[in-house]
């Protein structure tokens, strides 16, 4: 079997399977832990309003902006660039549409009456470049900044690698640079598979845990009327 057929077929099947098993294992393993009920008298009758932390924690409060703005801006540049390339490029859109339709039975067009939007290759490439540039800047910062350097470990660097690889291989494939297209697209798919396989075991899980941790702090603090 040639590399591309492997990457599109069994490689993807295994990667997605490991991804699904790992993510659900991690999440179930967290959510099903002993939840200690708080018996103290709540200051706020309904703590559900604390879930607003999921949104509000997306930007630091004014008192903290000065020290954190650099990382926040770079972080958003990466996330926005990455998500744009992932979600607004037709070949990717077709992939997800097919997954939703074929595996989950959800037809976006039937539900909403319009097709999921997508943009030109040039636009997608631009956002990809923004994401790559941001990642490189963030890596440099992680190595140079004493706080980040101290607290960083293998997970931080490896997760960085498996995140930048799909972006770089995707852009190379789009530009047909350096090797035959079939090889480039196979490498792109393999890099995505590596990301999927690593995902449940490292900090990429923040994709899901961000809702859990912000939500937990939000509700815990809200019931006390504590500053959120």
């Amino acid at each position, binding site marked *: 079997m040639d590399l591309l057929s492997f990457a599109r077929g069994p490689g993807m099947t295994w990667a997605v399977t490991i991804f699904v098993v790992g993510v659900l*294992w*991690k999440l*179930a*393993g*967290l*959510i099903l*832990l*002993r*939840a*200690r009920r*708080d*018996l*103290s*008298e709540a*200051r706020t009758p309904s703590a559900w309003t604390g879930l607003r*932390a*999921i949104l509000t*924690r*997306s930007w*630091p*409060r*004014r*008192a*903290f902006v*000065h*020290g*954190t703005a650099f*990382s*926040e801006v770079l*972080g958003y540049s990466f996330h926005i660039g990455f998500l744009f390339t992932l979600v607004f490029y037709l070949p990717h859109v077709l992939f997800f549409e097919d997954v939703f339709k074929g595996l989950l039975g959800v037809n976006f067009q039937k539900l909403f009456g319009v097709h999921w939007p997508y943009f030109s290759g040039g636009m997608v490439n631009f956002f990809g470049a923004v994401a790559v540039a941001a990642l490189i800047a963030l890596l440099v910062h992680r190595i140079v*900044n*004493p*706080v*980040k*350097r*101290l*607290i*960083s*470990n293998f*997970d*931080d660097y490896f997760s960085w690698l498996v995140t930048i690889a799909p972006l770089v291989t995707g852009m190379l494939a789009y530009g047909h640079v350096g090797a035959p297209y079939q090889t480039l697209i196979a490498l792109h798919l393999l890099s995505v598979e590596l990301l999927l396989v690593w995902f449940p075991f490292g*900090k990429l*899980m*923040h994709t899901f*845990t*961000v809702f*859990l*941790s*912000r*939500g*937990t*702090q*939000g509700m*815990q*603090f809200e019931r*006390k*009327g*504590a*500053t*959120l």
Partner: protein
Amino acid sequence: MSASDVNTEHPLELEAPRFSVKKPAVRYDKQGEVPDADRVQRAMQNFVRDFGRSAAIYMESCVHCGNCAEACHFYATTGDAKYTPIWKIEPFKQAYKREYGPFAWFYRALNLKSAVTVERLEEWQELIYDSCTVCGRCSLVCPMGIDIASLVSLARHGMAKAGLVPHELWAVAERGAKEGSPLGATPKVFKDRLEWLADDYEIDIPLDKAKADVLCTMSSIEIMKYPESIVATAKIMKHVGADWTFRLDGYEATNFGLLSGNADWQRDMSMKLIDAAIACGAKTLVLPECGHAYGALRWMGANLYGKPLPFRVVHIAEFMAEHVKSGKLKLKKVGKSVTFHDPCQISRRGGAIEAPREVLAALGVELREMEPSKGLNWCCGGGGGVVTIHRADALRYRVFQLKMNQIDETGAELPVTSCSNCRQTFDDGQAHFKWDKTMNSLLEMVADNLEGEAA
């Protein structure tokens, strides 16, 4: 004093005037004669013992962004990366992954996270105790919403069981557990004080009433260092016509079990207050001007008790605010400019942010807020037990400079707070830096300005 675990190599001098140790020899305090391997195991397991789902979620979510350092006063004033808040619990993150996380079995089977060593825990002692006041600013800046401060408290559970607490903190905690007060304000001493204060100030101070609506409590800092607070409390209770009492079986509001991380002592100390309130059928338990006392009983008490408390718990500032609103607490106007130092455990972590301000408004002061203020205020640097640790004095004074600048910039005449540990920290800092401002107690300010009464 019964047998203590306190290390006798370094004698304690709690009564002596405080001094800064310029460059203390590196010292890893230990309690008890326990093999190192056991210490580590106790540390790891007791960290996990009190874990729940929330703590696990927090432990899982860190993305190593480093933002927490920016919020921490210890990092802000030193630039030393080791004070990064999430770094303070690093060995315990490993423990979590090995002992409790969803992939724990793999971590143990494949030894993916090396077992923590006692040397590493010793190294971490100063990070967990000397350089964390559990102020909670880090929890607010964290983009992932991790309550880092609570994780440091949990880490202290492990350290305490392993006998790795800084030894002055351990000593006062043990004293509190065994004598009823960390600073020697034993029931006998307390009773004596109440008697001479009642005499000196000619005011009724009820003690050990069989039944009362309101149970008042005090902190040993006030009992020993700011006894006027006891008088102030009595005056205000009388002014609002409360049916109140002190009780010798439950008066000590500080909780050095919480601060040192000894969960058993923490429970014992809280249960004393709870049992006393139940014994006298109190509907309200009033906590004094003390920061961690509020967190300990108002928010953690019921969970230690195992059921909702059959009475309300309020901070004295909240009690005063309620009575300002109801009209029972009538105050004279104080025509001064004031800035309010929000105690971390009462405002930011405790949620009682507006109560002191309502009282200050009733006092008619010109309130000039610090920048930042309320829930984002900088910590005084003495909470969480840090003020008891002498070897941390130099660090604490660096942090204190932040506070002096903050307060000076408001141009207010009077700094006011409602936590006596903050007050103690400010007094110590004032002496060290020969600062021109003295911290005031909100409670005493109210007691001094009751309408219709001489100050």
